[in-house]
């Protein structure tokens, strides 16, 4: 049975730390021919330019060749081909499949039928585990540890897949969360229940205040998207409330870093970009290292293989 990465919840604490150690090796030296002669397929049933470029850069830096499609309109799925048939077909060609799909559970199903490893690059609103791995990598890189951190999540906590996965992955590391969101985009009950189940301390806030920022080690911003609102009056009311400006960072701790899964629209004012707390572009770069580690791991390469390369 091939190794896969479908959901972040399947990773143990040890496995997470192991993958982060592996990613660290790639940060030190990204260009390695570990996958010379291998083929990575990137199947994007839904366009996602940043995620695709990140995976393709990771594969290229490992010396692998990349095949795939970037737009479902040009593939046979528009002719009615099933996902299973596409996966079995591409599984004949490639050594590993990286898949983005608009349907939830698509990655797990693909991993069940695929003859080669499958990496989930996002399946609808469900899971996006490589994003979580790069978030964890960035948190550890900037704080020196994942343990006992104060993490403030801001914006769309209801639909935001990245904040849900981050919350689940952090259960191993005794975090304190602050959830800052309007009531219409508040953290869903199932995730608050999850926090209680795993003893994760959290507080909820409607106001995005300097006092909360001042407590935080990580300030994780997300986009409040217009299309999430059925009531546009409500959108107009909250859209400017959850915007981070440089003057709100006066009391911030020196170790605090601002993260964002990108793309940013206006939720972080451009004047924050030059602030030493801003870290979202470095965070995106870490996606390469995290994905290099994940591609190597599903193909059976170990941390030792990489250290001795």
């Amino acid at each position, binding site marked *: 049975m091939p190794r896969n990465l479908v959901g972040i919840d399947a990773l143990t604490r040890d496995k997470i730390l192991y993958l982060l150690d592996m990613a660290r090796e790639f940060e030190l030296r990204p260009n390695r021919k570990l996958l010379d002669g291998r083929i990575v397929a990137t199947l994007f049933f839904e366009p996602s330019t940043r995620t695709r470029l990140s995976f393709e850069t990771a594969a290229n830096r490992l010396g692998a060749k990349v095949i795939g499609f970037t737009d479902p309109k040009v593939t046979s799925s528009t002719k009615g081909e099933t*996902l299973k048939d596409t996966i079995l077909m591409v599984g004949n060609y490639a050594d590993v499949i990286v898949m983005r*799909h608009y*349907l*939830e*559970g698509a990655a797990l*199903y693909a991993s069940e039928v695929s003859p080669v490893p499958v990496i989930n690059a996002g399946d609808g*609103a*469900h899971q996006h585990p490589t994003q979580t791995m790069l978030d964890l990598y960035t948190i550890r890189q900037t704080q020196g540890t994942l343990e006992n951190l104060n993490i403030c999540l801001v914006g769309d906590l209801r639909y935001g897949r990245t904040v849900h996965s981050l919350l689940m992955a952090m259960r191993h590391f005794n975090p304190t969360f602050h959830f800052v969101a309007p009531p219409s985009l508040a953290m869903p009950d199932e995730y608050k229940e999850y926090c209680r189940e795993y003893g994760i301390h959290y507080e909820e806030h409607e106001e995005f205040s300097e006092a909360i920022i001042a407590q935080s080690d990580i300030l994780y911003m997300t986009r409040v998207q217009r299309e999430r609102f059925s009531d546009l009056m409500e959108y107009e009311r909250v859209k400017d409330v959850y915007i981070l400006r440089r003057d709100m960072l006066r009391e911030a701790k020196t170790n605090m870093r601002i993260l964002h899964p990108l793309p940013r629209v206006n939720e972080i004012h451009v004047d924050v970009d030059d602030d030493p707390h801003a870290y979202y572009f470095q965070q995106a770069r870490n996606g390469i290292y995290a994905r290099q580690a994940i591609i190597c791991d599903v193909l059976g390469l170990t941390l030792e293989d990489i250290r001795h390369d």
Partner: protein
Amino acid sequence: MTNETRMVAAIENGTVIDHIPSEKLFAIVRLLRLEELGRHKVFIGYNLDSQLMGSKSIIKVSDRYFTDAELNQLSVVAPNVTLCIIRGYKVTEKKRVALPDTLRGIVRCNNPKCITNNEPMPTLFHHTTGSQVLRCHYCDKEQNISEVKLI
């Protein structure tokens, strides 16, 4: 045994499924694939009077014994049915059904964006003993057992 239940022909050997809520009868016929049984004699009593339930239905299938896995599927739609195993016109065993830990290909996922609603594949649900919730193996969406829709 009430007179009405007796009206449904007695069988020499086979399985009797009693105390079916009448509105669930045809769902159970589908779940057991009775139309595919071929030469087996099947007797169905529909809308019979029941002191316990008001209206009930009963199915008798001759010369066919179902596996526990087949019978446990019934618990999704009718958790309180009674099963009687008949040998030589006598009830040799009485059983209740229990919801299994996994349900494959029976229940539809109520998430329209779930892969199982968009790909020709069997659904799969997980159930924890004692809980009233089914969780989709693929998209993780949970639904209450009382609200399930069958495939």
